[in-house]
């Protein structure tokens, strides 16, 4: 059925994404490729479209044009309207199932414990046996440093702990790629480190990640490639060392300067 994979074929491919909210053209043709096991960091000023790109990868937003492929699942968004509502939704659900998502404000299920948050997807959606999902959930919580807090409700956890549960929840569905939408932007500064440490650990263990963040040091240390977006287009892309330390574009340079030296 499936064509043999070329060794160089990236895990995630995005082409020609266009999206507008009313008169506001958020994405004006974005292309990107994410190799398996690599970390891609999207940076850019607010309103640049970086979060929207991320949300197109799992079809939380529906772009007007463009295509997204994650692994074997590809969606051509310009075709969706002609498919009919049901078929279009099914295509989006299939694409969404390929990735896990960590939100800026975690969006944990407040009425479920940390462990239940993690096992909800595997048990309820994927139908895995409860005991197996529990065991794996505990392992994931341990991996994010929360072995002892499995039975805590989200409201009983600190912001950093909540976000780490969010990461465990995203990993529990065995996604091919994990998407992070400004995972530390809503945190108190002293809690940022614990979340970034978990993310770095994931990256070192070979997870494919796409991260929207303002944490430039994280990008420098962990990212394989950095994409700088502005005005709905990718202005500059390249290895982290090059884009951050030695940007070619004037807009990138100005943005980084503002970020690193806000005064």
């Amino acid at each position, binding site marked *: 059925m499936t064509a043999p994979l070329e060794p160089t074929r990236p895990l995630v491919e995005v082409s020609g994404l266009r999206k507008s909210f009313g008169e506001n053209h958020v994405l004006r043709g974005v292309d990107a490729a994410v190799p398996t096991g690599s970390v891609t960091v999207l940076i850019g000023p607010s309103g640049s479209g970086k979060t929207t790109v991320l949300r197109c990868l799992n079809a939380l937003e529906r772009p007007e044009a463009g295509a997204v492929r994650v692994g074997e699942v590809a969606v051509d968004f310009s075709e969706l309207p002609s498919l009919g509502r049901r078929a279009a939704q099914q295509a989006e659900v299939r694409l969404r199932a390929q990735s896990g998502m960590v939100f800026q404000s975690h969006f944990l299920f407040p009425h479920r414990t940390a462990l239940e948050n993690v096992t*909800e997807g595997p048990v309820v*959606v994927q139908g895995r046996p409860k005991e197996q999902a529990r065991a794996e959930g505990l392992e994931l919580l341990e991996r994010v440093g929360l072995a002892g807090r499995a039975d805590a409700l989200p409201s009983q956890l600190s912001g950093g702990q909540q976000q780490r549960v969010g990461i465990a*929840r995203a990993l529990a569905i065995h996604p091919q790629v994990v998407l992070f939408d400004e995972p530390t932007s809503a945190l108190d500064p002293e809690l940022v480190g614990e979340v970034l440490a978990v993310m770095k650990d994931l990256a070192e263990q070979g997870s494919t990640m796409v991260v929207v963040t303002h944490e430039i040091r994280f990008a420098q240390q962990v990212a394989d490639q950095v994409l700088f977006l502005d005005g709905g287009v990718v202005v500059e892309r390249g290895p982290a060392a090059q884009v951050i330390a030695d940007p070619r574009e004037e807009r990138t340079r100005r943005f980084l300067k503002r970020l690193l030296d806000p005064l």
Partner: protein
Amino acid sequence: MDWELLRSSAWPLLQGLVLGTIPLTAVSFVVGMVIAVVVALMRLSPVGVVSGAARVYVSAVRGTPLLVQLFIIFYGLPSLGVTLDPWPAATIAFSINVGGYAAEVVRSSILSVPRGQWEAAATVGMDYPTALRRVVLPQASRIAVPPLSNTLISLVKDTSLASTVLVTDMFRVAQQIAAPTYQFFTLYGLAALYYWVVCLVLSTLQDRLEVRLNRYVTA
């Protein structure tokens, strides 16, 4: 005040309460809540015809008196060939009425759950019905309890209208005893007291339920 009559009426009225008022309230509320959830989901539907139908239903229920709804179903429908006994007629009328009011409560409670909860549910793979059942409704229920308790408490008292379509609820029992004795104050006062006690019990249950549902909100 006729104390002897009061004593001898206490038991028949209690029977009217337990065999009439309470079952009529309970059945109507349960059926009404089922209607309410269905109508609320219809109103939230992106399909115009569906949400429009739900809107008309809510508007008609809220825009007409309960007594008139009751009379249409019991006295009016027979002229269209549908004749209902007092009990089913009253149950249907109250269920429809509760459904209309509670639908708005359910709808606004669902809308008050942050969008991010829907998105988080979607990203762990849930479809709309699963997200609704596992994530959104449990959170919406916390918000819905106080206004729905209002609806329930109103319903307890509104069921006294069933006496006008020949249902033997507590109020009808009180009327039957009062009529030949002319002891209206005694009988209706006693009925009022019974209604009040039932509503006090419901308020207490509401408080407990709120505490239970709120436990995950505050640390």
